[in-house]
């Protein structure tokens, strides 16, 4: 049981972005997608979420091609945590998280016992219960990002995708969110694919990392194996050094040019 990205090529009408990306994520693991700007990380995430159909190749979950599923069936399989931007200001936290139940609701959106339970659970796990009745416009950036995570958890999918979830957060909230994702992945057996900008956070919180460059997969594996000074210097076109912390995690720093 795993997420298989099978020789995927994809892009937009005017431009190819991904070129033959082939990658497998074992169930229950966290994969961080790394690479310089424009490498195709977000495009790959859009292919995984079902929003963008690949030109060639497939995305399979437990052997099923997710692009052949109806939107509702797919939303029970894959949940996405986008960046918290331009959220509807007057929605309350609880309302927003309840929308995560959409794939289980009728067109009218009437929620049942199971739906309220899932929402309560998601709110509890993201520490949002005290804020349940607050409108989104009165939340901090970190809290808004947690609301979107809670909404994705309420979808109760085995697969969770995160698109640069820490971009607008300060250091404390970055670590807190990623630690939360890691703990949830362990607790719920979630398979997670996230686009992260910070190499050190990827090294710290991901089980596996994959590096994309110019739409191609450069390397994939454990952080310690993939994040080497030689490889990163080549991909990011900037000299870097890789140090190791006392706990054994690689730390990437820019070297003097």
């Amino acid at each position, binding site marked *: 049981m795993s997420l298989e990205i099978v020789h995927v090529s994809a892009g937009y009408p005017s431009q190819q972005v991904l070129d033959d990306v082939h990658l497998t994520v074992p169930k229950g693991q966290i994969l961080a997608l790394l690479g310089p700007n424009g490498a195709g990380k977000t495009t790959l995430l859009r292919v995984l*979420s*079902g*929003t963008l159909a690949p030109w060639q190749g497939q995305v399979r979950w437990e052997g099923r091609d997710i692009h052949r599923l109806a*939107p*509702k*069936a*797919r*939303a*029970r399989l*894959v*949940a*996405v945590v*986008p960046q918290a931007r*331009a*959220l*509807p*200001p*007057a*929605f*309350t936290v609880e*309302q*927003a998280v309840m*929308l*995560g139940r*959409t*794939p289980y*609701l009728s*067109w*009218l*959106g009437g929620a049942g016992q199971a739906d309220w339970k899932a929402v309560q659970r998601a709110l509890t796990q993201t520490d949002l219960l005290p804020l349940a009745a607050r*409108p989104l416009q009165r939340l901090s950036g970190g809290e808004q990002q947690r609301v979107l995570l809670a*909404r994705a958890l309420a*979808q109760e999918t085995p697969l969770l995708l995160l698109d640069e979830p820490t971009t607008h957060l300060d250091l404390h909230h970055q670590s807190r969110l990623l630690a939360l994702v890691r703990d949830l992945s362990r607790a719920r057996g979630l398979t997670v694919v996230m686009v992260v900008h910070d190499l050190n956070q990827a090294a710290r919180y991901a089980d596996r990392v994959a590096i994309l460059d110019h739409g191609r997969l450069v390397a994939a594996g454990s952080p310690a194996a993939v994040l080497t000074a030689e490889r990163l210097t080549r991909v990011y076109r900037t000299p870097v050094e890789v140090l190791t912390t006392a706990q054994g995690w690689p730390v990437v720093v820019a070297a003097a040019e």
Partner: protein
Amino acid sequence: MKTRWGRAFWLSAGLLVLAVGLSVTVGAVPVPLPVLARLLWAGLSGRAVPANLPAYYHTIVFDLRLPHTVLMLLTGAALGSSGAAYQGVFRNPLADPYLLGIASGAGLGAVLILAIHRPAGWGGALALPVAAFVGAVLTVALVYALAQVEGRLPTTTLILAGVAIGSLASALTSFLMLESEGTLQRAITYLMGGAPLSGWQPVLAMLPYWLVGQAGLLLSGHALNVLQFGEEQAQHLGLNARRAKALILAAASLTTAVAVAFAGIIGFIGLVVPHVVRLLWGEDYRREVPLSLLGGATALLLADLLARTLLAPRVLPVGIVTALFGAPFFLWVLRRARPTAT
């Protein structure tokens, strides 16, 4: 939470009943409430009109006031709920059937069919909203396509596209009116928000389309909620966003079209009412659509009351009254919306 919504509904419904009462009783010949009550009781129970009442009361209430009141009620309800739906689909507090030019497009459709074949009898009355619907849908499609900038719908381009297309439709309508003979001119003055048609025929011709459109809108609340997070997130949540948008726009356009076809172009109800509903009761389209429906009916009945009484015995076009109150409100919303309207 439930009781809060319950209160909102009962308050809105109560205000509407009050507005209906005022609309039927106030006029050149006032109908005292006891008289109205006895007339309605007699009418509903199928008994003869009490002999001690002057006969003209019956005519005034059943042939003049009541059909006019019901027409205004249906029209206001249509403008309120479709305004809420447009604001939801476009994710823009300034989207309104009038400002987006949709009402003018519907008006052009209606005038075209009048110019080709002046509707006589039921066939014509039932064809009118269909023509208006076609005009409304074409306008929405055009405005939507023109307003898009890199896949987004900025407020400025949306309103400008709406105003431009609306002006074009109005100009074509005016041209048709000038080119036509006097009979057509009289038949279409009501489209400019003038004196509406009278009698029960427009009400009954409107009703089937109105019911279909409103049913569509009332069923769209949850989808509209999901769409507030944008098309891509709506898809992540399992909604077929494009299809949902198309269906909701079709229902809103049908609802707008029937209002325009039988009551003319009346602005600002669809802008103001959903706004007030959101300010008072928060954002949840499952409630906002029905509350805007009730509120729109109440608002138009009150505006119509002013239009009939301000310069009595002259009757103002009700569109003038709604614009008088709506335009300053529009400017206020425009200023408020500016920081986030990119």
